[in-house]
Every structure is written in structure tokens, then in C-alpha cells.
């Protein structure tokens, strides 16, 4: 028989539990629901497989006596659960509790999740929406002196971090997002160091929230948004999908899945998808769809540095990271954002044992005033340094033209482990039409006959077979054999000694680019 004391304890426990689960109260929750926003607990439920969430810190509140009844879970829902059967940790910002601001106790909860994910080898997901640090708790020397900042933003990529940004994100929600391996922004989300109000007060500058840190800015200009979603649900689904390509931690290879039906069946289309004329554009994403397993392509930073495509995909059921030039944008010329995008993607792949595939068709780096002012020289060589440090398998297919320094950046010149060129590929230091002008100063308009003669000189020995003759590529292939070449080369270069695990020399590279 249950004693009276036990019944009291159970009732008291249930009251406290209900108060914590009530978050910021029905009024705030209803308002969110009306606006089509999920609350923090609904988001966690979406993230994890049914019934798998195990909460840590339900009974936490603010350490301040005056706030303890108005800070359920201290504004952060934290714990662990399964994503497609694999364990992951979560930090979900509860905006209904003091704007999900970070206080001393919620900071302890967040640090515990980070430590757990690192120590035990599981991904950590941020479901971000926060006003930033909690005011006035942080004010003064006692506030500032109570933190432990050294390892708070230490990022060694032992296990993946993913962040979904749903609404306003300032302070730690921003810091965690920019240090994540993948960030998705729901349309309407705003992420910045400080809120527009604080910016106006501090600097006198009147700023609009969207202009300061809107999702579109981060998708197109800063590149902090790896993906954009229309709804909370879609954003969380993208996080789940992203994690599906990655290992739970850096000491294991990514999961292998069955090859999807139809994969490789459209290979013959590769002979016609790329126009023969080197000057004509096309969308390389159509090529990637044919080469990769059917339905497996997952774009990363699709709206940023668009002349270069980066995407996760699967080939023969195995995760790969594909880096491809896209002539439909800027003719495929590689600009500063495209350089940052490539380096950031190399860092992702190298950190999590994901082999890299280059699909190459590029006219060179985009040169000019804007490029130089945006430090493109430094970006080009950062990329080269990163490429030299990558220890996961790298496989290159040169599809059409391939010029200059970018030839090496895109996996040429023995920067990759296996290389093939399509039989139609053309490799040189620059477009021969440009070279005639540079070397001889001859234009087609001024002297057509001499121009043609010099052009023939400059275009000689630029075929795939010329590169193959000096073993600059290991094979010359029919475009339709691209997928077959990649499957074979990835098998040959699989790191069998370590079961596919690389050295992660890039894992401490900058958390954002």
C-alpha cells in the first residue's frame, strides 16, 4: 500500500513536472501556434523518433530566487533522443521563457549537452530562437566573472553539430549556429550578433531586422545558411536528412544505405547534358542528379557562391561530398564566395570521413577589382592548403574545360587520389583565345588570319589525351562511364586500414568562413 507521504511526493512531483512542461504559459503558446510556429517541445518531438526523447534538466530554473517560478527548464529544453535510430543530443531554445535568454543554469545545461555529445560521440542539434544573454543577470563584474568561456566555443568537430534557426536569434543562438556544420533557416528568421534595437541604441544606425540578419541575407550574402525552409517542420526534417549522411562521430565512417532503384540508369544522358562548345552554359545540377544515387542529392549553401555547387549525396549507397562548377551562374567562374564555400565544404567532409568528388568545368577564378578587394588571392590559397590537408579520398572528373590555378583547386595536378577526364575535356593554363591576346596582343578583329594561326598554337596539346600522356589524369573516359569510374575509384581509395576514418586535419579550421 502506498503511504500518504509517497502520494504527496508523487502529487508534488506531478505539479512541478506540469509547471515545467507548461513552458511560458498558455497565452504565449497559443500565440505561437496561431502564427504557425511550433514551440520548443513540439520541435524536439519532431526531431526525434517517437517516444525516444530523454530529457535532462526538466526541473532546472533560474538560479535567482525571484525568477524561479517563471523560468521553466530555465528556457532551454535539453536531452537526448534517436534520429533514425541513432542517438543525438538537443538544445531547444524555449522563446516563451524570457525569450530563451541564456542564464547561468541554462548555460550549464547547454555545456552538459556539448560535453556529452563530444565525449560519447553523438551529434548535437540546436533548435535556435533566442534573445541572447539574459539581462540583467549578466550585468556587472559578478555576472561576467562567473562564466567559463575557454571551451565554450571550442570547436574540434568530434561529432556533428546542426542548427535550425526559427525566429530571432541573437547571442548564443548565433554563436552556436555559425559554429555548426549545418545550419538551416526558416523563412522569416533573423540572426545577428545583436538585435536591431540594441544596434540602434549603440550606434545610432537605424536598421531593419531583415536587412541586419534576415534568412535571405544569410542564404545569399554571408553563406551562414546552408539551407532554407518554409516551415518549422521542414527545417527539422532537413536537419534529420543532413545527419543521415554523417557518422555519429568522427571515429566512424558514415552510414551505408541500400542503393536506390534507378541509380545509374540515366548515365547515357551525360553525353548530351554538357554542351560541346566550351562557351555555352548549362546547369551542372542535372549532371549531379544523373551521377549520384537517385534522390540522394542534398544541396549545401545552394543560394551562396552559386557558380560552385556543394552537395552531399550518395554514390553506390555511400555518402560523398560533391564539389562541382556550375556554368549557369557566372559562367562557372569561381568568385570569392565560391572559394569560401569550397573550403568550408572540404572542412565538413574531412572532419566526418566523407569522400570528396570534384566535377570540373571552369573558366578560372573570377578576376577583377571586386575580387581583389574581397581578398580572393588569400581565399584561393586557403582552399589549396585545405585541400592538401584533406585525408579522406578525393576523386576528380574533368568534364569540359579546366584552366589555370583553379585546375589544382578543383582536384587536378595530383591534389586528388584518382582523376579521370572526359574524352572531350580541355586542359590548359587559360582559354586559348585569351592567351593569344596576352602573348601576342593579336585580336580576331584586327588580323583574323594571324589570330587563327596563333590560336591554333595556343590550343595545341590541350586534350584529355595530352593530360593522360603525362599521367596528369589516370584515365580518359566516355562521359557515360562517370558513375562507374567514381564507384571504382572510391572503392580503390577507401581507407581500409582505418575502416574509412581519416585524420581530420581540418577539424579545427575556422568555424565559419
Amino acid at each position, binding site marked *: 500500500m502506498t503511504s500518504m507521504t509517497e502520494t504527496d511526493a508523487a502529487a508534488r512531483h506531478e505539479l512541478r513536472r506540469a509547471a515545467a512542461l507548461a513552458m511560458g504559459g498558455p497565452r504565449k503558446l497559443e500565440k505561437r501556434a496561431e502564427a504557425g510556429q511550433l514551440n520548443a517541445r513540439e520541435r524536439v518531438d519532431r526531431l526525434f523518433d517517437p517516444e525516444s526523447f530523454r530529457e535532462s534538466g526538466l526541473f532546472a530554473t533560474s538560479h535567482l530566487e525571484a525568477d524561479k517560478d517563471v523560468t521553466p527548464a530555465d528556457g532551454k529544453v535539453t536531452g537526448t533522443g534517436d534520429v533514425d535510430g541513432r542517438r543525438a543530443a538537443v538544445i531547444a531554445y524555449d522563446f516563451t521563457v524570457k525569450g530563451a535568454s541564456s542564464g547561468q543554469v541554462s548555460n550549464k545545461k547547454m555545456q552538459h549537452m556539448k560535453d556529452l555529445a563530444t565525449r560519447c560521440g553523438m551529434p548535437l542539434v540546436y533548435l535556435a530562437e533566442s534573445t541572447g544573454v539574459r539581462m540583467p543577470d549578466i550585468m556587472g563584474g559578478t555576472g561576467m566573472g562567473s562564466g567559463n568561456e575557454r571551451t565554450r566555443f571550442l570547436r574540434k568537430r568530434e561529432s556533428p553539430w546542426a542548427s535550425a534557426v526559427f525566429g530571432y536569434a541573437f547571442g548564443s543562438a548565433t554563436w552556436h549556429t555559425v559554429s555548426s556544420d549545418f545550419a538551416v533557416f526558416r523563412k522569416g528568421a533573423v540572426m545577428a550578433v545583436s538585435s536591431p534595437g540594441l544596434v540602434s541604441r549603440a550606434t545610432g544606425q537605424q536598421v531593419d531586422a531583415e536587412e541586419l540578419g534576415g534568412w535571405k541575407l544569410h542564404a545569399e550574402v554571408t553563406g551562414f545558411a546552408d539551407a532554407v525552409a518554409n516551415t518549422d517542420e521542414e527545417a527539422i526534417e532537413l536537419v534529420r536528412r543532413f545527419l543521415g549522411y554523417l557518422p555519429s562521430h568522427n571515429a566512424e565512417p558514415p552510414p551505408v544505405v541500400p542503393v536506390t532503384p534507378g541509380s545509374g540508369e540515366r548515365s547515357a544522358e551525360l553525353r548530351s547534358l554538357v554542351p560541346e562548345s566550351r562557351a*555555352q*552554359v548549362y546547369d551542372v545540377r542535372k549532371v549531379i542528379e544523373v551521377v549520384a544515387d537517385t534522390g540522394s542529392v542534398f544541396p549545401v549553401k545552394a543560394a551562396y557562391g552559386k557558380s560552385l555547387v556543394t552537395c552531399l549525396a550518395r554514390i553506390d549507397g555511400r555518402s560523398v561530398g560533391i564539389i562541382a562548377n556550375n*556554368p549557369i551562374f557566372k*559562367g562557372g*567562374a569561381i*568568385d570569392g564566395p565560391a572559394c569560401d564555400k569550397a573550403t568550408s565544404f572540404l572542412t565538413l567532409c574531412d572532419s566526418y570521413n566523407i569522400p570528396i568528388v570534384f566535377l570540373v568545368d571552369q573558366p578560372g577564378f*573570377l578576376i577583377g577589382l571586386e575580387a581583389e578587394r574581397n581578398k580572393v588571392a588569400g581565399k584561393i590559397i586557403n582552399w589549396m592548403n585545405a585541400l592538401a590537408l584533406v585525408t579522406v579520398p578525393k576523386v576528380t572528373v574533368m568534364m569540359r574545360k579546366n584552366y589555370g590555378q583553379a585546375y589544382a583547386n578543383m582536384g587536378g595536378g595530383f591534389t586528388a587520389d584518382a582523376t579521370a577526364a572526359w574524352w572531350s575535356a580541355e586542359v590548359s593554363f587559360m582559354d586559348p583565345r585569351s592567351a593569344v591576346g596576352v602573348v601576342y596582343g593579336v585580336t580576331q578583329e584586327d588580323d583574323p588570319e594571324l589570330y587563327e594561326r596563333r590560336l591554333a598554337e595556343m590550343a595545341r596539346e590541350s586534350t584529355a589525351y595530352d593530360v593522360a600522356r603525362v599521367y596528369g589524369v589516370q584515365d580518359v573516359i566516355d562521359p557515360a562511364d562517370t558513375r562507374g569510374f567514381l564507384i571504382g575509384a572510391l572503392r580503390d581509395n577507401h581507407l581500409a586500414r582505418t575502416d574509412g576514418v581519416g585524420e581530420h586535419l581540418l577539424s579545427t579550421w575556422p568555424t565559419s568562413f
Partner: protein
Amino acid sequence: MSESIHADMSANVWKILVAPGDAVEEDTPLMILESMKMEIPVMSEVAGVVVAVHVSEGDSVDPGQSLLDLSTD
């Protein structure tokens, strides 16, 4: 509503494919720029009617320069 189409890189205007008054669909090529020895089409991102063309064939354009205006009413 009108929508201005801008150059996204330094280029020469090679061919102009539309004139004021032309109706265009989404993804219609409006003009072809030449840069980095590539023929780079400028596509309409919306359906509309060409209101004005601000450049001529042979012009050089800078990033951000307005190329043409579309009315989307």
C-alpha cells in the same frame, strides 16, 4: 510592380534578346553577357513585360548595374 534585372559580374553585353513591350515568362533568356570567355544568359526570374532596356550590345557592365526593367503587374 516592376523588377530591375542587374548584372552579377563584370561583362560585355553580347546579345540583347528582348525589347520594350515584349512579354516574358519565368526563365526566359533576356540577354547574353560575355565574360571569362563564356556566354552567360541573363534569365528572367519572373513573368512580366519588358519596360526598359538600359544597355546596348557591346556595352561593358559592372556588377550591380541595372540591365533592364520588367513590369510584373
